[in-house]
């Protein structure tokens, strides 16, 4: 009987030691594989066997750790996504003050070409448009009368002409410098006879102004789509 009891005690003792080693090995190994888990955890685990309060604390720490791991994983994924998107992004044109003078010169030349192409595009579009006599005549008179009275001092109406979806108004400013520009802007900022899109070109050397205005409910022809490939926007 005594021998049996001793045997049972030994078996229980061996199992307890094996269990403790097993747990210690498990958490000890995890702490080595992840830098996030401090090595203290293994000893905390062993000590936790002694105290139920410490045991609960250990469980809380373990849960927090798992949550942190999850968050870290998410952050890593987000970072990878951002890096992938950044590498796909187009590099914008360098138009800063630090731009190479040669580049700036090339940009100005390109702009000048575009301005010329744009004016030609609008001129061709307007001239090629069929006329709507009923609307055209009314709109033409309306614009003529409006700019004759609304134009600021120093701004004169030269000619107005309307076709079917757009009108062309030619104006002139007495002074092509900043004063003339302001007078033109003050004129242009007033409420027009109808709400329409306007494209206004001021030649700052001659003071000539050409304005194209769309009919209400219409838009001006898209000159950008016509000059595909030459687009300077980014």
């Amino acid at each position, binding site marked *: 009987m005594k021998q049996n009891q001793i045997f049972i005690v030994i078996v229980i003792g061996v199992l307890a030691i094996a269990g403790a080693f097993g747990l210690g090995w498990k958490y000890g190994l995890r702490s080595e594989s992840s830098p996030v888990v401090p090595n203290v955890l293994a000893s905390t685990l062993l000590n936790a066997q002694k105290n139920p309060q410490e045991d609960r604390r250990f469980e809380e720490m373990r849960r927090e750790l798992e949550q942190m791991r999850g968050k870290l994983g998410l952050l890593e994924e987000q970072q990878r996504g951002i890096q992938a998107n950044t590498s796909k992004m187009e590099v914008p044109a360098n138009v800063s003050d630090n731009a190479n003078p040669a580049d700036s010169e090339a940009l100005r030349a390109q702009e*000048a070409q575009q301005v010329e192409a744009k004016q030609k595009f609008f001129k061709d579009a307007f001239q090629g448009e069929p006329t709507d006599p009923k609307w055209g005549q009314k709109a033409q008179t309306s614009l003529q009368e409006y700019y004759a009275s609304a134009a600021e001092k120093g701004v004169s109406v030269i000619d107005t002409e309307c076709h079917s979806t757009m009108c062309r108004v030619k104006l002139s400013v007495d002074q092509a410098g900043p004063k003339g520009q302001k007078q033109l802007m003050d004129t242009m900022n007033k409420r027009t006879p109808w709400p329409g*899109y306007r494209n206004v070109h001021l030649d700052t050397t001659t003071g000539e102004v050409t304005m194209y205005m769309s009919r209400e409910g219409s838009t001006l022809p898209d000159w950008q789509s016509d000059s595909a490939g030459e687009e300077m926007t980014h």
Partner: protein
Amino acid sequence: MKKQLLAQPLKSVLSISVIALSALAVPQVQADTTSTNYPGLMCQPHDPKSALYAYGTFTDIYSNELPGNSLGMNCSIPRDKVDKQLNSVTVIVSDSDASLTDPNPNNSGTFCHTHNETLNAGSIDYAFGPYANTYNANGLYNAVTVAGPGVPVSPTSNFNLHCHIGVNASLHNYTANVRR
């Protein structure tokens, strides 16, 4: 029998749920528009004369112009916020210049438009969007949507919102909606 009777509606509910969840799982088409909100004080009267008739609170700009006139002002839209094109601007105004019995927006002293200004060597190009009137809101805040100028941004262009507000009207804020 009972089981069959119950199974059919359950199947339907399950099918609908699966379809709904599938629809949710499909990536939504991302809006290509972003919006930036600016306080009314980002607007400045565009000449010294009209500046005399303007005053501001911490967010609004007010007009105490004489009846029959309106306060013209430029509202800044920083170019670095516009990647491609200014789609539209939503302006929040309080327009109390018209009489309470006149709801016709065409008689309102308040209207806005957008414009894009491009400086070139030897010329300046302006693109204006169509103006939009505000309704007589009898002093209440009212939103007006103003179309963009219809041209994309270029390295040498500037965007602007231009508004005229009538006597005792105020511009509270505006939101630039841009295409990215």
